[in-house]
């Protein structure tokens, strides 16, 4: 198994026909495309990920291509295909790379039901994971990017993958999605962060991605114990505030933020109860990232996580 650091534009034809296979633990993805912005994005963000080779089993086969409609001559588009199906309408061609990331999120969220999946960022320190669950626009990814810029390990920016049998979180460290004001905020907060090209006028506004720290990628097989469930919210000029949150209401909110809670039924319920029972639960309001980092630095691991 090699790593994906020998990419060259001459390989684009090969990427289009045979695809490139990436191990994004715990999944293997085979990607077919000849779109330069996607190839450049893969090279920028995924150069340290293992490449299992074209004969390896892949969980997902995805491709990004220009649709062959007449429309392409006056307004080029990009289409995302998954196992030969087209789950979404095409997007403007400039949005090809973000579409790859969004499409891959969709693939995982709709197919990986051996995990209880919650829409949340997850970061880890000393084996203890903080689940940052919040709806879009609440500052979750900005906070996540800031925390991993200050030494926390990235488990995921988008999906908490919880093993119902062990209650541990499986990492899937991928690029962190940044949008609108948070792009410049993170550039300023971490000048050494690798942030890719900005894409404007998407359905989420102006978007880009921040590369996952190499240390997080190299440790992508190390699971973590859920120690804290935190509902973050950015509020302009607000004082930083961490308040305990009802465990019962935490369960209900996590269930609402889950992609497959109803599908898993009682298994999902038992997993959520197990996690919330052992974790500390908080609501968190912040406006300044440095203040937020200080609060997170002082979090104490609950006894069940300390013992593991």
């Amino acid at each position, binding site marked *: 198994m090699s790593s994906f650091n020998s990419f060259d534009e001459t390989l684009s034809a090969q990427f289009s026909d045979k695809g490139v296979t990436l191990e994004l633990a715990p999944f293997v993805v085979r990607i077919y495309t000849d779109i330069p912005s996607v190839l450049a994005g893969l090279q920028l963000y995924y150069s340290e990920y293992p490449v299992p080779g074209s004969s390896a089993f892949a969980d997902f086969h995805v491709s990004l291509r220009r649709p062959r409609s007449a429309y392409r001559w006056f307004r080029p588009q990009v289409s995302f295909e998954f196992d030969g199906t087209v789950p979404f309408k095409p997007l403007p061609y400039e949005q090809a790379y973000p579409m790859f990331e969004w499409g891959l999120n969709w693939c995982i969220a709709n197919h990986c039901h051996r995990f209880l999946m919650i829409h949340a960022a997850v970061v880890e320190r000393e084996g203890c994971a903080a689940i940052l669950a919040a709806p879009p626009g609440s500052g979750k990814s900005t906070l996540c990017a800031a925390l991993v810029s200050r030494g926390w390990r990235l488990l995921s920016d988008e999906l908490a993958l919880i093993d119902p049998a062990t209650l541990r979180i499986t990492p899937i460290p991928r690029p962190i999605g940044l949008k609108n004001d948070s792009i410049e905020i993170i550039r300023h907060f971490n000048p050494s962060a690798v942030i890719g090209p900005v894409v404007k006028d998407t359905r989420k506004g102006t978007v880009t991605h921040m590369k996952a720290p190499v240390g997080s990628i190299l440790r992508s097989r190390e699971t973590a114990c859920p120690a804290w469930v935190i509902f973050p919210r950015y509020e302009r000029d607000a004082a930083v505030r961490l308040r305990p949150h*009802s*465990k*019962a*209401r935490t*369960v*209900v909110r996590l*269930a609402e933020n889950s992609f497959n*809670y*109803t599908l898993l*039924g*009682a298994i*999902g*319920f*038992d997993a959520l*109860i197990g996690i*919330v*029972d052992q974790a500390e639960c908080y609501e968190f309001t912040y406006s300044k990232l440095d203040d937020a980092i200080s609060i997170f630095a002082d979090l104490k691991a609950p006894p069940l996580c300390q013992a593991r």
Partner: protein
Amino acid sequence: MTLRVVTLCSAARLKMSPLWQDECVVFDAASCNTYAVPKLSAQILEMLQAEKALKTSTILAGINAKGDLDEQELIRVLDITLEEFQRLGLIEIIAS
């Protein structure tokens, strides 16, 4: 207080979390609906899980076994709670 007989809906298959700070979570496996409920509501559901059907007077006696709670207030809360459970499809009030 109106005397009624209450039973869990036949479809309702309930699981409950531990009690945390006077609240717990109820999961209806039939619908996958999940509710945060106060301790009193949890007690009522546990009693209904243990018996096929209960009179409201029996429920009242069960939740005030020590006799140290205000009975009028309990009746008021019980009425509200049962109505809410009925609305959520967890119980049926089968006679009154």
